[in-house]
Every structure is written in structure tokens, then in C-alpha cells.
């Protein structure tokens, strides 16, 4: 017998209520851990953008995947004094086996793409990729997610796109690692988009030339059927993710409103369980247990309950994030340490918010008054 065992007994004395309270806290921790991890995924994606890169997209862009820019002026752009390299990326979004498994497929000229993005082949070989028109390099995370192996043929969207895996890769820009690289000509033929890109990537010799080169590129395309909008990759990526963010924000607000109810229920349950035991507080004090010891026990009990609920919610979030891996095939998902800390902190806060006031009240009451209370 110890004070700790008394705390644990009290935690389990009303199991149904204990489970309900812990569940309320768990739901809150789950939602917060998930939302913060998604937010951190956005941050990682934007954070890996390169400040010496420009992104050239169709000006009247409705969707980051369906917009098109003509490749015809790539040579002109590459010839600009402040430009080091320029290449086009044709992007497609395909489902794999199930509608919710979205795969981003980037059609690239690998050699030119390497001039703007650092890509390192891991398993397999680059020569195998070069040798086959339908070859693909798959990002390590997506290969691991779907269990794809080198040499395997993969079919996407009811066989509208089929490729053979020549190797896996890792990239400094994490947004590419969650997708697949194929030959641009191959993808363009399948999509009937020869001579077009979804966007161009331009590497500058000097980041200070960002504004002037952007203006020059947009001027070059001004009289094309599809005029362009050129901006830094970071800004472009933020814009690309804007829709996701809006969706996440709206979803987040709705879910937060819902969890407020369960949080209130959990805090109220904790508060009630302490108020009900005011007489027992009087018993303990009559035996000589000090106010601060009892306060510590009551608060520890609430904290343990909150941490148990929080840990369960965070565990569930970690499993679901690890299973989902990416949001929309682009945003990498994983439980981030910051999200873990914040959601555990929130769980603790909920527990303590329900416990502190009634615990202080119960221990401040005179022993005689506490003992007069009915069980």
C-alpha cells in the first residue's frame, strides 16, 4: 500500500466514467496531434523549397495539376544571363488500386531535372531508367508505403499509366519523394500534352535576380496562348497548398468545436469525481494527511487519467498518420515531436482544468465540514 496505489485505485473505482473521461481527452489529443502533424507536413514541404528557384506556371491557373505552360521558350529562358538551368515538369495525379490512394507522377527530363533538383538514386540504377521509356524512379517513402520493388510493373488509374520501377530515389525537396518520376515524353504522350509542362523550374545564378528574371519570363510568355505567372518556388508552393490549407482549416474548426464538447465532458467528469470524494478528503485529513499531500494526490490522479487518454489518442493519431503517409499524395504525414508535445500538453491541461479547482476546494474545506458530507 502506498499513496500511489491509492491514486491508482481511485482512478479505477468507476471504470465506465474513467474510460469516458479518458476517451474525451483522447479524442482531443488525437485531433490536435493529427492537425498539428498535418500542419507540420505543410511546413516541411514549404521549408524544403529552394530560394534560388523560380516556378513558372500558367497565369490563369485553376488547378495546380491541370495548368499548362508551353516548353517552346525554355531555351530562351535557359539562355537568360541570370539563369543557370531551366526545365519543365509535367505532373499528373493518379489513383493506385483505390480512389483514396493518390500518387503524384512527375514527368521529367532526368538530366535537366537534376540541374534544378538534387535527386539521388538508391536501389536500382539510373541507367535502367534511361534505357526504358516507361521506366520510373519512385520515391523511397511511396515505395515503402505500397511495397513497390525494383523491377516491378505498376499500373495506375485503371491502367491509364503503367511503368516499370527502375529504382528508388531520395530528393532534397521532400515533395518529390512522395511521388514518382517518369520520362516526360512518355507521360506527355499518354496525356496528349506533348511540348507542354505543368510548370517550369528555373534555377538562378543569383537569388537577387528573382524579380527581374520573373518579369522577363512572364514578358516572354505574354503573347502566348497560355501566359505565365512566375514566382519564387516557396511562394508557388504556398499557393499550391492553399486549397489544402483552407480545407484543413475549415475541417479543423469543425472538429475543434466538436471536441470542445468532449473536453468539457471530460473536465466536468474529473471535477465531479473529486467533488464526490470531499468526505474522503476529510477522512484522510483526520488521519493526518496534509492538505498539500491530498492536493498532490488528486491532481496526480487527474494528470494520470489525462496522460493515459492523451497517450491513447496520440497513439491512434500516430498509427493513422503512418498508415496514410501523405495527404493528397503530396503532403508528407508523420507524427511530429512538436505535435506530440502539444497534444500531450493539451491533454494534461484538460485534466488539470477539471481537477485543480475542486481539489483546492475539497482540501480547503474544514475537516469537520468535509466529514459531515454524505458519501
Amino acid at each position, binding site marked *: *500500500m*502506498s*499513496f500511489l*496505489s*491509492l491514486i491508482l*485505485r*481511485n482512478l479505477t*473505482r468507476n471504470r465506465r466514467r474513467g474510460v469516458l473521461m479518458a476517451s474525451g481527452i483522447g479524442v482531443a489529443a488525437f485531433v490536435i496531434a493529427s492537425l498539428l502533424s498535418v500542419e507540420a507536413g505543410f511546413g516541411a514541404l514549404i521549408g524544403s523549397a529552394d530560394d534560388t528557384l523560380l516556378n513558372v506556371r500558367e497565369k490563369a491557373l485553376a488547378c495546380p495539376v491541370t495548368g499548362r505552360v508551353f516548353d517552346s521558350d525554355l531555351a530562351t529562358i535557359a539562355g537568360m544571363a541570370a539563369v543557370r538551368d531551366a526545365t519543365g515538369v509535367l505532373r499528373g495525379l493518379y489513383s493506385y488500386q483505390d480512389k483514396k490512394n493518390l500518387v503524384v507522377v512527375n514527368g521529367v527530363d532526368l538530366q535537366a531535372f537534376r540541374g534544378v533538383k538534387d535527386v539521388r538514386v538508391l536501389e536500382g540504377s539510373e541507367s535502367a531508367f534511361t534505357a526504358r521509356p516507361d521506366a520510373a524512379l519512385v520515391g523511397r517513402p511511396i515505395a515503402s508505403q505500397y511495397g513497390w520493388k525494383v523491377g516491378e510493373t505498376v499500373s495506375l488509374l485503371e491502367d491509364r499509366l503503367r511503368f516499370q520501377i527502375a529504382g528508388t530515389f531520395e530528393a532534397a525537396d521532400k515533395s518529390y519523394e512522395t511521388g514518382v518520376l517518369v520520362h516526360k515524353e512518355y507521360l506527355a504522350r499518354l496525356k496528349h500534352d506533348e511540348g507542354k509542362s505543368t510548370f517550369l523550374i528555373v534555377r538562378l545564378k543569383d537569388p537577387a535576380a528573382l524579380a527581374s528574371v520573373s518579369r522577363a519570363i512572364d514578358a516572354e510568355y505574354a503573347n502566348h496562348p497560355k501566359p505565365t505567372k512566375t514566382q519564387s518556388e516557396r511562394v508557388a508552393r504556398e499557393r499550391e497548398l492553399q486549397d489544402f490549407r483552407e480545407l484543413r482549416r475549415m475541417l479543423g474548426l469543425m472538429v475543434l468545436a466538436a471536441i470542445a464538447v468532449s473536453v468539457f465532458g471530460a473536465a466536468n467528469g474529473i471535477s465531479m469525481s473529486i467533488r464526490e470524494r470531499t468526505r*474522503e478528503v476529510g*477522512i*484522510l*485529513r*483526520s*488521519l*493526518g*494527511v*496534509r*492538505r498539500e499531500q491530498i492536493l498532490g494526490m488528486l491532481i496526480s490522479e487527474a494528470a494520470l487519467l489525462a496522460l493515459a487518454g492523451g497517450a491513447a489518442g496520440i497513439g491512434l493519431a500516430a498509427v493513422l498518420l503512418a498508415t496514410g503517409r501523405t495527404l493528397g499524395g503530396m503532403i508528407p504525414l508523420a507524427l511530429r515531436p512538436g505535435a506530440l508535445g502539444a497534444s500531450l500538453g493539451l491533454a494534461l491541461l484538460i485534466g488539470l482544468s477539471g481537477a485543480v479547482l475542486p481539489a483546492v476546494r475539497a482540501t480547503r474545506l*474544514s*475537516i*469537520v465540514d468535509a*466529514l459531515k458530507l454524505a*458519501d
Partner: protein
Amino acid sequence: MSDDVILSVRSVAKQYERGGQSVKVLEGIDLEVERGGYVALMGPSGSGKTTLLNIIGGLDSASSGRVIVDGLEIGALDDRRLAAWRTANIGFVFQQYNLLPVLTAVENVELPLLLFRMTKEERRARARAALVLVGLSGREHHLPRQLSGGEEQRTSIARALVTDPKLIIADEPTGNLDARAAANVLDLLERLNRELRKTILMVTHDPAAGRRARTLVRLQKGTLLPEAGAEVTA
């Protein structure tokens, strides 16, 4: 105060402020109890018996006057020291038993020992010995709800004994029990007083219980009345 006197209550008064008015509960209480004494405090409801008991046990404070237990004036102790003093010196037996429902009989008895420096083996051994003393050796792992009223009260007496206190304070210890269980509890208290020389101060409504004590003291309207032949100086 003689060495034989364990409890000395001097000019104790207690009044409450209620609805803007002062209500006198105790007035001018003087009482001495000898070491090894067994005193029954009787009186009608509202006469201040429990209030006096609570003041003596350090659960409540007097508005004026002094309570001296074994040479120590407890009114001078702060909250923290008073709590430690209660643990070491007073064993409480309540009408409602006041056992913690989540703890077994032996754990309830062990509870006050958590406040002493001793190993868990020593704590458990002392708690078991106290249960044996009150005749509950086979019930140590039962929860309070699995015990009869008499067994619960005997567990509470074991808890009061386990710290070897200087004074056992019992507030209506038979008030919730049937006649047979009440007689058992009174037998036990009498035995503790007679064989172990435990000093007991008991509040009771029950004349039969009062007669078991060696000294009978009556309270009326907050004032102590001496009983003829009492060993107590009042």
C-alpha cells in the same frame, strides 16, 4: 498538570457566526482525563459533545481556552504540525466508520502508517496485528462493502490503534450498529482500555455504552455537568 493526566481542557469555548449571529456551542469547559482512563461523554443532541471531541482531537479549533494533550498545547500548532501531531497521538473512531471504499481492510488500517518512516513490510505487519487484535484476522483483504457494520467499525478501531496513539477518540462508535454488533464493539473498547491501558474518550447517546466507561461526563447546552462518583475533575 500531573504526569497522570493525559488530557487537560481549560476554559474552552466555541462559538460560530451564523446568519450574522453568534451561536455559542461550548462555554467554559474544564476537563481532565487521566492516562489509561475511559471517559464517556453523554448529552442530548446539540449539547456540543462532538464539537468538544473534535476540538480535543485537533479536527476543529476552540474559540478560546486551551487543550493540552500529554503536555502539549495543541492550539499553538500550525496546520502542518497539527496534522503530524494528530497522526502520532490521536486515533479516531467515527460513527460512520470512515473507511476508504477502494482500500481493503488491511490497507485501510495501514493508511495512517504511510505517514511514518517505516518499511512496507513493517507497515503491513503492524496493520495485520491490529486486525488480529480486533478479531478480524480472516477479513483483511475484504473491501469495506464486503464487511458487516460491526466489522467495519472494528476495522476503524484497528486503524485508530495501529499508530499506538496516546488517546483514542470515539464519536458514537455504536450509533450505526445493531445491539449485538454494538456490544462487540463496546467489549473491544473496554478490553483495549483494560488490557492495553489505552485512554479512550467516547461520545455516546446510548446509556448502556456510557455505563461501560469508567467515567461518565454529561454535557448540556454546551456546559459540562459532573457525574456523581466520576473520576474526572470538571
